[in-house]
């Protein structure tokens, strides 16, 4: 027996220390994974306990007010809704159009890889820089002023890379034999794209678009640069009205909390509204993905 030549005790000792080390580190790795989740849980619990009692019909429906007990966020809710009205069509048309071009029409070559590189670089540009672009281009040069259209277009440019990449992946996932069958029936390229490829890719595209939308409505930095007023303004009624939005309202109430302590609670309540909205959007995205995603 070969084990006769080994010092079983020594080997056992060394082995067990290595195994113990393995177990110890495993615990540390697990604890690290939980760390992020614990912070998330603390954040949610803290914000909900702080803000939940401030949420009632009056708070949701009232105008903004400097009096904390009468202040409401209807203006901010409408502002966010109007932003979505601008962001959805703009990002869908430009995002899906760009994706179709890159995936289905562009010849593999310099132009295509230039546009693709450009998009991936745009995705890494800080959102505040988009704010300055929006300020210069939409607010000042095109003279929209700090209205919903300017804010919506700025946010659209910001999330465009997300939509484009999601749409590209969705288009790529459509199997080639579907379009080949369509060509075989005598369909032209555009007919194939419009009637076969796009419908098949639609769930994936919608999922990506909704995720991009939820990124857009939670985004604050670009709006702070556009000069969104913190004052009492009438409810927006169209895309050429000035506005405030949920994240902006949270921002103003948070930085003013040192003046009026109750503003912090109002900010927490507004955060709850924003988080519920984001939660709904993400649920819809997951629902669409699970329900309509076809496996070929």
């Amino acid at each position, binding site marked *: 027996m070969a084990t006769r030549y080994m010092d079983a005790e020594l080997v056992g000792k060394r082995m067990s220390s290595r195994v113990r080390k393995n177990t110890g580190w*495993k615990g540390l790795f697990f604890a690290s994974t939980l*760390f992020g989740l614990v912070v998330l849980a603390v954040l949610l619990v803290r914000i909900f306990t702080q803000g939940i009692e401030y949420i009632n019909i009056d708070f949701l429906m009232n105008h903004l007010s400097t009096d904390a007990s009468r202040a409401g966020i209807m203006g901010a809710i409408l502002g966010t809704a109007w932003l979505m009205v601008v962001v959805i069509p703009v990002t869908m048309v430009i995002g899906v159009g*760009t994706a179709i071009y890159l995936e289905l029409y562009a010849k593999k070559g310099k132009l295509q890889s230039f546009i693709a590189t450009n998009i991936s670089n745009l995705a890494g540009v800080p959102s505040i820089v988009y704010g300055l672009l929006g300020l210069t281009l939409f607010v000042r040069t095109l003279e929209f002023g700090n209205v919903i259209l300017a804010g919506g277009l700025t946010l659209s440019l910001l999330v465009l890379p997300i939509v484009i990449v999601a749409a590209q992946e969705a288009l790529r996932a459509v199997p080639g034999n579907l379009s080949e069958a369509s060509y075989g029936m005598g369909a032209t390229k555009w007919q194939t794209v419009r009637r076969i490829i796009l419908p098949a890719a639609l769930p994936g595209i919608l999922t990506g678009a909704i995720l991009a939308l939820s990124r857009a409505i939670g985004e604050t930095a670009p709006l702070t640069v556009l000069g969104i007023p913190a004052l009492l303004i009438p409810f927006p009624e169209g895309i050429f009205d000035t506005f405030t939005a949920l994240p902006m309202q949270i921002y103003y109430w948070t930085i003013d909390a040192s003046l009026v302590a109750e503003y912090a609670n109002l900010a927490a309540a507004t*955060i709850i509204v924003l988080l519920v909205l984001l939660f709904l959007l993400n649920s819809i995205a997951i629902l669409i993905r699970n329900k309509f995603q076809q496996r070929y």
Partner: protein
Amino acid sequence: MAANNKNRMSVSEMIEQQKQKRKIFNQLERMIPSLLLMIASISVLTTVGIIYTLFAESVAFFRNVPILDFFTGTVLKPLSQNPEFGVLPLLNGTIISTVIAMLVAGPIGMMSAIYLSEYAPDNVRRVLKPLLEILAGVPTIVYGFFAFTFVTPLLRMVFPSIEATNILSPGIIMGVMIIPMIASLSEDAMSSVPNSMREGALALGSTKLETTFKVVIPAALSGIVASFVLGISRAIGETMIVAIASGSSKNFSFDITGSMQTMTAYIVEVAGGEAAAGTTIYYSLYAVALTLFVFTLIMNLLAKYISRKFREEY
């Protein structure tokens, strides 16, 4: 008979009509590619727009403030009678907050990635990973609120002298925000290391820990480093957390319990103050944003270079 004739077309007419239809259709078909190219070029125009606005307005700024003074000045007093525009206090704030964020996100993100990729059973990973991704989906304004109203008071128990606005608490929370990014990118890199390599190490008698540190991590290093660089880029560009929780002190200091301003927070403060167009302080926005843009661009390109250049192919 006459009414019937009216509706009935001769065959040649029908062919003619069909041709006409085809013609319009073919024209549309031919127009589609150029139409799509026009749409696709909007993203290129966005880049051009960003670079053009930043450069054009920065040039106007550097006409008033010498470029050397801007990049070497340690005093930033945009609103004083004799304004001084040194960017170093802002760079200092940005670098310190980024370092704090990476001290949190680097180790924790990395260890989470190791757990998810090497240790976690499949069903645990399927639950933990999406939960971790939620952290990345929380709007940054929410993190800012949390850092300002919860983390800073919490830190006061440890550092009684901490200011109401300080760089430490937003730095930590920024780190928490970046954890899922580093965790998921590093996990992708580690998961793509082929199993045969792990099996080889395990067969030689390595424990899982030894396999991870001596085989998997070296093989996935390019992806892991790239994820760290992207995390840094994200931290540099992060705005709302620091804008809310770190205040607006423009002192050139290294006291992490005190207020410091980052480049991003400066842009929020000055733009929010509605600086009149054409003033030096208005142009300073663009000079700072240009610096920020160049920094993040370099980081993003670096990450891409690292992951492409040093990728180990198996």
